[in-house]
């Protein structure tokens, strides 16, 4: 009994998702898998889920690499399934054997909830649109389809691509359209091999490679984009070898970070103030603390001092510890400090926070900082740690940087960037001396915080760090 190739197309794993990322394959080509055996981990916008094999058979092909974002409905893995045991409707399939790679799934497709719908939904309005434009640009892809890829000819006639030529817009998906635009590929000139002539990512890439080889042999003459197209791809043929740029899909933590930054930067009007201070006294204090018994077993850092100073100053300047609640049109004043610490983690930027930091002594604060950063670097920060922050610190000093204009963690009114501690010539007791100096940069949300309050807050922190004894006048 001849084996049948069965394609598994990426289903909609959540409710209404359009794409997912292949995180890792648990099988390789040639592996024998059982029904429901986990073959891959897939990350959707909602969750990382395990994908169980829908067939028992041998893995014939993995269509996508780990790390690839795949559209729902795209084939991701093919199986060699023993000829028997295939459900009804088997006979037309099995005659075609490997050549039917695309065909049977296309037929099965509407059976599979999730990826029938997307294509059909876009299909119907498109079909209506085609009527009006019926005779404008006929005979587009007939040549392309024959010339381009023999492998998909089985698909092409069935879905009547030639007849669908005069579409206003060729059928594709937004990410693919964008890809085509970025690559300067003229979509109407591309032969779609997807369901019902849908132009896929592969089609665009194939077209790009082809036009790179033949230059403008086949593409639409007089298309306005053509000239630019050539210009854009100054060295198009060498895309594979010696790339001049690398394109990384925007996803995961990067995507999340970007969204948060944009949301923050464009809703909260940021003001940043700078203060450069002599922290020699604080550094001396730190050295004494390190050798004291109470702090013997804890790594106490400048960050811990700054964090403590911030909490003390915040008590005197509570406006900085508030939140703009746009939905309820209220300003929420926090009577606690959940102190966020920006941390570079393997997964990207995270801002876990220390709950009720105002209640912690210096020693406890140092412990909390240590625990928090270790957890973050191990990638084990829990969702609870990341939510509910009220103010943040970012320690750019560890990178040898002096100052910056930090962007607020969304929902918070202020963020303090601490620069690196440097030995610099500085005025000391009316003389020039080599002192340890640090710059503080404070960004605040100008909707909530006026310049006066922000300035006082920053000055308070500066006072504490340059002369720790002044705390006595503040608490």
């Amino acid at each position, binding site marked *: 009994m001849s084996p049948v190739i069965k394609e598994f197309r990426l289903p*909609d794993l*959540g409710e209404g998702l359009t794409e997912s990322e292949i995180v890792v394959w648990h099988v390789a080509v040639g592996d024998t898998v059982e029904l429901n055996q986990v073959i891959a981990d897939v990350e959707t916008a*909602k969750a990382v*889920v395990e994908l169980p094999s829908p067939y028992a058979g041998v893995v014939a092909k993995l269509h996508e690499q780990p790390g690839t974002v795949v559209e729902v409905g795209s084939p991701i893995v093919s199986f060699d399934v023993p000829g028997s045991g295939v459900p009804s409707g088997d006979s037309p399939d099995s005659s075609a054997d490997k050549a039917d790679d695309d065909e049977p799934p296309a037929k099965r497709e509407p059976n599979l909830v999730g990826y029938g719908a997307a294509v059909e939904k876009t299909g119907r309005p498109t079909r209506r649109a085609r009527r009006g434009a019926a005779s404008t640009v006929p005979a587009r892809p007939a040549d392309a389809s024959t010339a381009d890829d023999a492998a998909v000819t089985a698909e092409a006639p*069935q879905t*009547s691509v030639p007849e669908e030529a005069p579409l206003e817009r060729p059928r594709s998906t937004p990410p693919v359209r964008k890809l085509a635009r970025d690559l300067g590929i003229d979509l109407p000139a591309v032969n779609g091999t997807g369901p019902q002539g849908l132009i896929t990512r592969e089609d665009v890439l194939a077209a790009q490679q082809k036009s790179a080889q033949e230059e403008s042999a086949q593409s639409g003459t007089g298309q306005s984009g053509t000239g630019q197209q050539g210009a854009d791809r100054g060295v198009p043929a060498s895309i594979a070898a010696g790339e001049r740029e690398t394109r990384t899909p925007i996803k995961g933590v990067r995507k999340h970070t970007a969204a948060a930054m944009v949301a923050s930067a464009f809703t909260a009007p940021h003001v940043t103030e700078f203060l450069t201070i002599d922290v020699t006294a604080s550094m001396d204090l730190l050295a004494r603390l390190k050798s004291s018994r109470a702090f013997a077993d804890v790594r106490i850092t400048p960050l811990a001092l700054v964090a403590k100073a911030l909490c003390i100053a915040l008590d005197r300047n509570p406006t900085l510890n508030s939140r703009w609640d746009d939905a309820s049109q209220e300003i929420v004043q926090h009577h606690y400090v959940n102190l966020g610490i920006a941390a570079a983690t393997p997964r990207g930027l995270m801002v876990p926070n220390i709950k009720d930091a105002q209640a912690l002594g210096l020693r406890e604060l140092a412990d909390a900082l240590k625990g928090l950063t270790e957890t973050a670097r191990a990638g084990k920060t829990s969702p609870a740690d990341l939510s509910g922050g009220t103010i943040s610190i970012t320690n750019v000093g560890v990178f040898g940087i002096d100052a910056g204009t930090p962007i607020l963690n969304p929902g918070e009114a202020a963020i303090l960037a601490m620069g690196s501690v440097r030995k610099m010539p500085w005025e000391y007791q009316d003389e020039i001396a080599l002192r340890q100096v640090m710059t503080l940069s404070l960004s605040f949300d100008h909707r909530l915080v006026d310049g006066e309050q922000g300035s006082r807050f920053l000055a308070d922190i500066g006072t504490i760090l340059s002369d720790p004894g002044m705390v006595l006048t503040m608490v």
Partner: protein
Amino acid sequence: MPLNNEADATQNELVQLITPSGERRSNPVYDRWVSDVDGAALQALYEDMVVIRRIDAEATALQRQGELALWPPLLGQEAAQIGSGRALREDDFVFSSYRENGVAYCRGVDLTDLLRVWRGNASAGWDPYAINMAPPQVIIGAQTLHATGYAMGVLADGADSVAVTYFGDGATSQGDVNEAMVFAASYQAPVIFFCQNNQWAISEPVRLQAHVPIAHRAPGFGIPSVRVDGNDVLACLAVTREALDRARTGGGPTFIEAVTYRMGPHTTADDPTRYRDANELEDWAAKDPISRVAALLDAQGLLSAEVSDAVKATADDVAARLREGCISMPEPQALDVFKHVYSEPNSWLERQQDSYEQYLTYFDSAESVNTAPNPSREVSR
């Protein structure tokens, strides 16, 4: 009789007949309700739980394979569903939420019917009167009103059947559930409010919704309540039987809080790791409803290899039939949406159906202009 009509310390105690490690614990009040449960009956309960866990796993896999749109897993709640579901009489009527697929199994639902809704092929998977269980209610808590109304009907009929409604901890915050309890108490309707407190209303922990055990709310409505170990199938059976007996003998409604845990996601579209602690999951894994019965059976010498194999074979068979029924389910037709709107012909609806039919034909002709006979046309409609 430990009815929670008065607040006292015993209220927080769970009725438990089988401990997590599988020891049978005697209970002076509830033992009598399960005195008939012999070795064979316990084996049957065990098999039921294994089977519905298998159904759940298979359906979850089917969703991941694109064969179901969505599935709400019941993993961890097997004892609550089997214990209560197996206590019911055939003429009792169940009004459930969407997660009571184990109860539906007890009611004898056809396996394919169980998946019809989740595949998006029908608005309701089965004839409610065929198995005396209403289609799953997706609107949180609305089914409690249906159950109370049904129970008031039972009163009017002078029958002795009981309406049983299932809902979760989150639903108790809904107005519907509270209204249902008011009416149930007022009419002393034969209805059981079976709350599976699985600790999480999607991402909302139960402690945010209830500062006291949920069972404590019912006495405020004049409804006796009991908290039971929802992972103990025998205890769930016992408290449900007691409540059924009360309802059949004119004692009115009962509220049961089965304290359990949703081991999986809220639905296949949810990621619980984003909001709950792995340690919590571990703690509850140690209280697994199936392994404790397995331990008890084993200690009594009732879990031989043959018994285990037979149970596994049954579960595998059910899973295979479930899968086959799912993937070979015929596609719904576009005009099916008109079928179950009115019980009798309706000219207004018929007109709509006619114009919709014409609308669909329009696409057919558009397609036939373009294509030779297309085998996929039927299903692509």
